[in-house]
């Protein structure tokens, strides 16, 4: 790790001020991505600003037809929340399937979506559940937030405060785990709600999470696993690495989509 200054602001306002003042700052939440990145010397921030302990970013509130989750809420907290389990069990299950128990005790929702790893789970939930991402500057629709591999709409100095997940009528997430890393080889989140029907895929695409409109249309006509069984995705644009070829991942999208629709009931 390169040297850096460590700051632990007492409030979100302090964090914003520190961000504005520093040369080349980086926010730290759970550190489950940033610390490995620092260790590999893939980042050299001048200042690390630790928002992981900010109480004002650590909450889960069910209000009206939605659940609001603070950016610094840990995966384990989301997985075990009675409110999330009641109104959005697919989201609770997704959070409970991230990495391993120790990772879930530290990793946060905000860190996961800000990082936008192409194999991360939360981006699929945000996109499939029509989530609203509230930052210190504005509200960003999930559709506008994820811009490509490790890229988001976030600007310098912008901090995610919370994410609003409207309750789905039906939803399920099916993930084919990479057996070594536990990240998604392919993960498919299907949902039905006030936004219509959505199918979001993570792990597969070279540009990160994406929606499959052909599957969404097929499910609108006929909500059943059969409806997606014949929708095949091209291998072009899929990730290929030592864990699986592009063709394999394209194939898995259909398999996981079928399983997700079946699980959503």
């Amino acid at each position: 790790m390169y040297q850096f200054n460590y700051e632990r602001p007492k409030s979100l306002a302090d964090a914003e001020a520190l961000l504005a003042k520093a040369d080349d700052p980086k926010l730290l939440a759970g550190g489950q991505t940033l610390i490995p990145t620092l260790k590999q010397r893939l980042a050299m921030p001048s200042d690390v600003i630790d928002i992981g302990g900010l109480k004002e970013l650590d909450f889960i509130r069910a209000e009206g037809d939605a659940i609001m989750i603070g950016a610094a809420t840990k995966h384990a907290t989301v997985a075990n929340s009675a409110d999330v389990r009641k109104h959005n069990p697919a989201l609770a299950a997704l959070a409970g399937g991230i990495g391993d128990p120790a990772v879930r005790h530290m990793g946060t929702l905000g860190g996961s979506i800000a990082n936008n790893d192409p194999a991360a789970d939360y981006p699929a939930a945000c996109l499939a559940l029509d989530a609203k991402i509230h930052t210190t500057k504005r509200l960003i629709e999930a559709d506008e937030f994820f811009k490509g591999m490790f890229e988001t709409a976030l600007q310098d100095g912008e901090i995610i405060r919370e994410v609003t997940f409207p309750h789905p009528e039906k939803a399920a997430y099916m993930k084919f785990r990479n057996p070594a890393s536990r990240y998604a080889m392919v993960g498919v989140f299907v949902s039905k709600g006030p936004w219509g029907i959505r199918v979001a895929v993570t792990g597969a695409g070279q540009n990160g999470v994406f929606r499959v409109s052909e599957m969404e249309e097929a499910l609108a006509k006929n909500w059943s696993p059969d409806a997606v069984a014949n929708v095949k995705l091209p291998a072009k644009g899929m990730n290929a690495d030592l864990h699986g070829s592009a063709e394999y991942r394209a194939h898995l999208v259909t398999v996981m989509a079928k399983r997700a629709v079946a699980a959503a009931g």
Partner: protein
Amino acid sequence: MPVVAMTVNGKPASADVEARMLLVQFIREQLGLTGTHVGCDTSQCGACVVHVDGRAVKSCTMLATQAEGAEILTIEGLAPDGDLHPVQKAFREHHGLQCGFCTPGMIMTAVDMIRRKPDLDEETVREELEGNICRCTGYHNIVKAILAASQEMR
């Protein structure tokens, strides 16, 4: 350099540290508590698991400064009076280790899982061990030991 203060195994511990010092370095190098191991140093293997405010975390993936004010429990603090903790006893009885390198992390993970899930079954134990790698045992006896300890502790 930042000053960091925390409680480790019930005793106050503080030092001037570099901001980039990892919690596991603080524990091993600053405090000399070498029961916590560094295996992969890439957040995968779980040999470095300790409890931070009662929850299992990988101490190679946390800065010492992040633990400011926290209560840390390491393998050395598990059974301070010389008796073995029921999980340690079960690992010995069921031969849940061979070379022993992963054992401190396995045991700290096991104690955390038994606390969160008192009604463990084999499948759950295997799932909960996702983040702990053992290259000797094939896990079989580790799982047996954890199940036995969870029975004992009920």
